């Protein structure tokens, strides 16, 4: 009985125990008070939230040893054992700000991010397709950003004094070898891939990561979309053809598959738009693709994308050496591309990303000299006329295997390393006017290993340090390419970054096999950037210096081929670039302005000396303005591209000096082009309509401004002709429909 009384008494004592006040204050490591911190006496109801001066106070009935916790988003959590007796407790707690993606400085020197998710993105995925001068071409939208040239006579991105072949394009980490349709003389071709395939793009105009290589100037890194949001069928009809596809999302939303087919025929476009060339084979494209995506158990992803296309075109243009004759160029292309990618969380912070890709490309080119009635002419005197009749067949196979291992350390710190293996086999058969064939096969095995670390010292200071080591069979040498970027964030959230890197590249296939032992061509980049980014305004200024060494010089082989002869070429590029994007000043108007100043000279290929290359302009500018009128569900987009004239040359062979000299030179007129597009979305926001429709009208070079890209010279250099766009204006009209297959009901049923 006594025992029970004791129990009752002790219970009573517990319930009448005194209340103890616990108070204090919470600040970060710099002493700045933190507001909104949750203070908890662990496993009790007792606690408080700090006020704007970081103070807190509460009373508790608890006694004895307890754990006091302090937690808030973005800071490391704090726990301390306290002994609650009768005395009030006062605590001064310091908690450390976590390095979080949201607050941390972005390592951005040299790169532009186009994404909807990434912090630091300057363009959204939609911007890539709504930029009017781009015509829905993935790379063309980037021509409105600083650092790129307005080159219209050939495809690709010419970045900071570099050639298009110095820019490489990657899809989910794997190199895409024939990103663009095969070149045709004097006309830029489009990229092969639909811009809607990609959820994010990083365009690096220099100083890119050690994960990528073999590009002296620039890397365009495309990331394909993960699972689609819903099952959907698409249909598109336009002046250039029609296409359709389906994306099917599994009921459990863990996997999807899709197929699409596109047929393009420029017959209608040629009715709308006048072309200066005489197309005897109207360009026809067949293109099919297929994909599947599977989300794995641990949140990983397996993605496959396969593409197959065939296209042909043939056109005649007046032969430059003779006013009576014509050059007829025909190309037949067949291309396949397969990319399988797997990323997986393999536990304890490790992530594996691995991929393989395989692609083939076949070009059949036939060039003829024809007379007024389109009959083939073989003229052997002078000899250069004879070489206007030729056939060229290129058959190429490319394979790549790659893995990257990431280990997430504390905060945002990451180390990653991995390896790339590239195999390429390119066979070209050149047939002369007299039927003589020259066949050549170039095989390369290129292996690379790389390692990189993202180091966040604080939210305000971060560095990315990496290196890449490569060995190519063609060059048969090793190269080591270090890459460093550092970024610092100021108090006002603006930031400065610096990047340095060495970049190596093999000679282009067409200059192979090399005449003598050759080395890698090399570029060193130095980039300094200042950027201020808010949710509706972006301002950035970047200065760069790029030094080229070991550029390839070419010699003419006995068979008339221009081949890599030595690495005595060199050059430099330096400049200043500005970018400003503003969505705030004018209501519902979004615009960006970019300006680039470029000073560059190089001695490479058959250049007689160090001169400004034909693909470089001193000043380039672009303005893009977009406004969406919700009332009429219509968006209007306008872009204006400007560039000062580019140099052109005639290189004459001087037999006395045994080398090329400048026979003639000049500068083209300034380049101006205004493009305009209208998007009309009649069913926007109407949930009842199952079909989503987009009408697109686009006009390139609305004002019909005269554009000269370059000049072609006659064989003896006595006369020149301007290289101009194939048509003055290009008008595009299309209608794109999406049929959403509503799965809401499925989603609900699966949840129940």
């Amino acid at each position, binding site marked *: *009985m006594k*025992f*029970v009384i004791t*129990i*009752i008494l002790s*219970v009573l004592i517990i319930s009448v125990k005194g209340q103890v006040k616990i108070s204090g204050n919470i600040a970060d490591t710099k002493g700045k008070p933190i*507001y*909104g911190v*949750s203070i*908890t006496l*662990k*496993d*009790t*109801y*007792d*606690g*408080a*939230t700090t*006020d*704007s001066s970081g103070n807190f106070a509460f009373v508790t009935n608890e006694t004895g040893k307890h754990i006091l916790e302090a937690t808030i*988003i*973005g800071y490391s959590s704090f726990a301390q054992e306290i002994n609650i007796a009768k005395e009030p407790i006062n605590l001064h707690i310091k908690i450390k700000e976590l390095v*979080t993606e*949201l607050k941390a400085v972005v390592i951005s020197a040299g790169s532009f991010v186009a994404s*909807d998710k990434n912090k630091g993105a300057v363009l*959204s995925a*939609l911007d890539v397709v709504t930029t009017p001068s781009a015509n829905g071409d993935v790379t063309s939208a980037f021509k409105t950003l600083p650092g790129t040239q307005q080159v219209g006579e050939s495809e690709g991105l010419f970045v900071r004094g570099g050639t298009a072949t110095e820019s490489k394009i990657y899809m989910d980490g794997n190199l895409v070898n024939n990103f663009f349709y095969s070149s045709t003389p004097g006309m830029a071709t489009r990229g092969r891939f639909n811009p809607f395939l990609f959820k994010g793009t990083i365009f690096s105009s220099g100083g890119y990561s050690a994960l990528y290589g073999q590009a002296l100037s620039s890397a365009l890194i495309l990331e394909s979309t993960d699972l689609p*949001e*819903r099952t959907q069928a698409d249909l598109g009809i336009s002046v250039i053809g029609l296409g359709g596809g389906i994306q099917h999302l599994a009921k459990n939303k863990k996997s999807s598959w899709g197929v699409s087919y596109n047929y393009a025929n420029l017959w209608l476009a040629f009715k709308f738009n006048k072309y200066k060339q005489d197309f005897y084979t109207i360009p026809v494209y067949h293109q099919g693709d297929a994909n599947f995506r599977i989300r794995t158990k641990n949140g990983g992803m397996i993605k496959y994308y396969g593409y197959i296309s065939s296209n042909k075109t043939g056109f005649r243009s007046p032969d430059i050496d003779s006013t009576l004759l014509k050059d007829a160029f025909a190309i037949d292309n067949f291309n396949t591309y397969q990319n399988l990618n797997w990323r997986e969380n393999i536990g304890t912070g490790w992530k594996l990303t691995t991929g393989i890709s395989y692609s083939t490309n076949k070009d059949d080119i036939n060039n003829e000299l024809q007379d007024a009635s389109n009959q083939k002419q073989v003229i052997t005197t002078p000899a250069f006329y004879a070489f206007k009749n030729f056939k060229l067949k290129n058959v190429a196979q490319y394979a790549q295997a790659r893995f990257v291992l990431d280990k997430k350390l504390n905060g945002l710190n990451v180390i990653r390393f991995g390896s790339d293996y590239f195999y390429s086999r390119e066979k070209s058969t050149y047939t002369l006017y007299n039927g003589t064939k020259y066949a050549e096969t170039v095989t390369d095995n290129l292996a690379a290993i790389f390692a990189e670390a993202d180091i966040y010292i604080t939210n305000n200071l971060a560095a990315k340090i990496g290196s890449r080591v490569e060995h190519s069979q063609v060059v048969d040498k090793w190269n080591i390419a270090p890459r460093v970027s550092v970024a610092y964030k100021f108090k006002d959230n603006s930031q400065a970054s610096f990047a340095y890197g060495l970049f190596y590249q093999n000679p282009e296939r067409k200059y192979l096999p090399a005449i003598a032992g050759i080395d890698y061509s090399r570029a060193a980049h130095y980039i300094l950037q200042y950027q201020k980014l808010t*949710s509706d305004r972006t301002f950035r200024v970047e200065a760069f210096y790029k030094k080229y060494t070991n550029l390839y010089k070419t010699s003419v082989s006995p068979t008339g081929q221009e081949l890599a002869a030595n690495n005595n070429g060199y050059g430099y590029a330096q400049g200043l670039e500005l970018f400003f994007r503003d969505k705030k000043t004018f209501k519902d108007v979004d615009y960006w302005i970019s300006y680039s100043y470029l000073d560059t000279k190089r001695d490479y290929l058959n250049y007689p000396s160090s001169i400004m290359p034909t693909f470089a302009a001193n000043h380039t500018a672009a303005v893009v303005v977009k406004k969406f009128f*919700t*009332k*009429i*569900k219509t968006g209007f987009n306008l872009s204006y591209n400007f560039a000062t004239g580019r140099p052109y040359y005639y290189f004459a062979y001087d037999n006395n000096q045994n080398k090329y000299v400048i026979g003639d030179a000049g500068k083209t007129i300034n380049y101006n082009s205004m493009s305009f597009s209208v998007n009309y979305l009649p069913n*926007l*926001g*109407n*949930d*009842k309509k199952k079909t989503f429709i987009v009408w697109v009208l686009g006009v390139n070079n609305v004002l019909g401004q005269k554009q000269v890209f370059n000049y072609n010279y006659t064989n003896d250099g006595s006369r020149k002709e301007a290289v101009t766009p194939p048509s003055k204006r290009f008008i595009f009209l299309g209608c794109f429909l999406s049929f959403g297959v509503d799965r*809401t009901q499925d*989603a*609900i049923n699966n*949840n*129940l």
Partner: protein
Amino acid sequence: MKKVFLIAAVSFLTIGAKAQSDKYIASMKSNIAAIDTSFKNPINLLTLANKFERIAIAEKNQWLAYYYAAFCQVNYTYMEQDKSKVDAIADKATELIDKADALMPNNSEISCIKSMIASAHMMVNPMQRYQEYGPEAQSYIDAAMQQDPSNPRPEYLKGQGIKYTPEQFGGGCAAAKPVLQSSLDKYNTFKPASDIHPNWGKERVEMLLNECK
């Protein structure tokens, strides 16, 4: 003696448990009562969110405590002026509501909070995020209606969304009115399962309907 001891011990334990549950109910009640006035000041809302979370952690298996903690956090995102902070707070709300969901699966009220969280993410950049979060918010509202057809809150959220959507996109008062009216009818007959079960939103619906007169 042994028997007496046992009886005593058992009764103390029950008293203890009863005291514990009384304390839980009382704390929840006073905190829920404070929600309405806390909307005037974001710090009060955050303070309440933290209070609910403390109760939830201490109690371990009371889904309502997690529910209200998430409710306060998601409402806090709507008051946050700095849009760049919203995603992190909304993620915190998701973390809380997921715990409630684990304790009480397929609950209509929990689906409502999930829909509100998706809307919070969307509001950071509606133009860019509509495609992703619009259907997500909608699908949780649909799920909530399915899980409990008598719950007025899914229709309140739906009607509110329609009212603030521009007319040319199928929104506006005319389209929102029938949905809000149906929600109000349900509020008029809705009986929460207990004093501390969700019972908010009626005044808001009346206000919205009033604005649409």
